[in-house]
């Protein structure tokens, strides 16, 4: 059985190309982070994966089925980014109601235990904290015992402790051999909880690989210094430097290892001054990767 296959997927809203031709394959059992800044096209991709939005071009296959067929079969559960809960039902009632829609749901008590809702199962949504609300939404996503679990920025509105508890629950579910795709704009979440990260920017996939690789790529630092009269080629040869650019009197070194680079720089070129080291933010890193930052 093949897992999730997105082929040449495109979707525009007016002039905005939200998703601009992406190809992604996810094997069954993989936990994949969909990483990218706001507006990268993550939510639109997820909407197409769920059959909520029809692609302009390209195709989506979820375990060899269309998204609609996969949803009808109860193979997909999702925690959507926008959305809160309906009022007037307790957490347990809400889960029971949702479970009734599936042929083979996960038992309600198991859902409550897995999502850590046991204590608050008899409360109504208005009485829940931000983190508890998110966990309840997580429970709604789990209720069909899905083959594919999709989480769109699930830890928004959670404090550190709830985040940790949330990811522990996610892990417990993924360890049952299920496929998990989660969108986030936190690099750390991708690094800590995913087998693989797919980076999106401007509707395109700009990188796809193990989170550590992605982290090295986007987690790079740059050194800026005033250093006239040294050829850029020489600087590129410094240890820890992946790229060097000249901006007038100043140089900018993009580094994979900024510690090694700065030691080497100062040893060989004691004249270097006005040093600045900055960590590339995720946003900048994306711009760099897509070539928009030049």
């Amino acid at each position, binding site marked *: 059985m093949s897992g999730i296959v997105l082929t040449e997927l495109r979707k525009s809203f007016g002039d905005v190309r939200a998703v601009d031709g992406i190809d992604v394959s996810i094997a069954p059992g993989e936990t994949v982070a969909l990483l990218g800044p706001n507006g990268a096209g993550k*939510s639109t991709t997820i*909407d197409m994966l*769920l*059959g*909520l*939005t029809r692609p302009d071009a390209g195709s989506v296959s979820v375990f060899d089925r269309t998204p609609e067929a996969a*949803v*009808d*079969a*109860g193979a*997909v*559960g*999702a925690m*959507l980014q*926008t*959305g*809160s*809960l*309906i*009022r*007037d*039902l307790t957490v347990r*009632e809400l889960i*029971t*109601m*949702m479970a*009734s*829609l*599936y*042929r083979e749901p996960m038992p309600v008590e198991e859902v409550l235990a897995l999502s850590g809702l046991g204590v608050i199962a008899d409360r109504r949504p208005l009485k829940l904290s931000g983190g508890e609300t998110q966990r309840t939404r997580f429970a*709604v996503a789990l209720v*069909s015992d899905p083959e594919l679990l999709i989480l769109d920025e699930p830890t928004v509105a959670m404090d550190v402790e709830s985040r940790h508890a949330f990811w522990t629950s996610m892990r417990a579910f993924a360890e049952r051999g299920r496929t998990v795709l989660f969108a986030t704009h936190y690099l750390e979440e991708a690094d800590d909880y995913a087998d693989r990260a797919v980076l999106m920017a401007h509707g395109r996939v700009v990188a796809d690989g193990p989170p550590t690789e992605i982290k090295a790529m986007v987690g790079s630092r740059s050194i800026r210094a005033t250093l006239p009269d040294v050829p850029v080629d020489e600087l590129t040869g410094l240890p820890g430097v992946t790229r060097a650019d000249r901006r007038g009197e100043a140089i900018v070194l993009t580094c994979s290892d900024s510690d090694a680079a700065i030691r080497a720089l100062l040893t060989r070129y004691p004249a270097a001054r006005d040093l600045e080291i900055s960590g590339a933010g995720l946003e900048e890193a994306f711009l760099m990767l897509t070539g928009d930052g030049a």
Partner: protein
Amino acid sequence: MRSSVYMRYELLRILRSRRFVILALGFPLGLFYVIAAPNRNVQNLGHSGLSAPLYYMVGLAAFGTMNAMMSSGARIAAERAVGWNRQLRITPLTAREYFRAKVVTGYVMCLLTLALLYVAGATLGVSIPAGEWVRMTILILLGLVPFAAIGIWIGHLLTPDSIGPTLGGMTAIFAFLGGVWFPITSGTLQQIAQLLPSYWLVQAAHIGVGGSGWDVRGWITVAVWTVAAAALARRAYRRDTKRV
């Protein structure tokens, strides 16, 4: 089995939303007492030969149920605003099961409205022969079908901000041209009124005051509105998967 559990919780939800229930049921009831109670001893309203409480009770039976049925649209708009509609779309719940639950909850509100109005009428001395009372109730329930579809349709079309004024305006026009507040018996106005489902809903309620119910035009008008509004509702529902 699965849709019955879903339906049970939909009903539970509506009965638990206290403010909605109190307003939806209290409005026609309050209106009835405000208008009818001061005139409780008027036995020949506008030379019609009808008592004031009787006339207003049947009028409000039409108006109150029309309101109750269409207000399901407001609940749908609110559910869409919090993204609940999208969450349901990624379950195996079919459009048919979804619509059925919405229509049934709408009818439960209408039945409660009618029951309260009948009891309120009785407290002001209204009595209707059993046969007419049953005929009136059945025909009102049939006359509400197009309103169920209209409610679902606009619920999937509008936002919570815009649905309030829209519902208010629609029910006001429907009530006015349908003859809720005064009888429409002749002229161009009646020809226009007869094209509206509210006119026939009022005719259904007027069985309680000796009316004859629907002629062929009535059945056709209600059927056409039902088919058209249901088609629009289905279309709006199908399109309505965007983030709101």
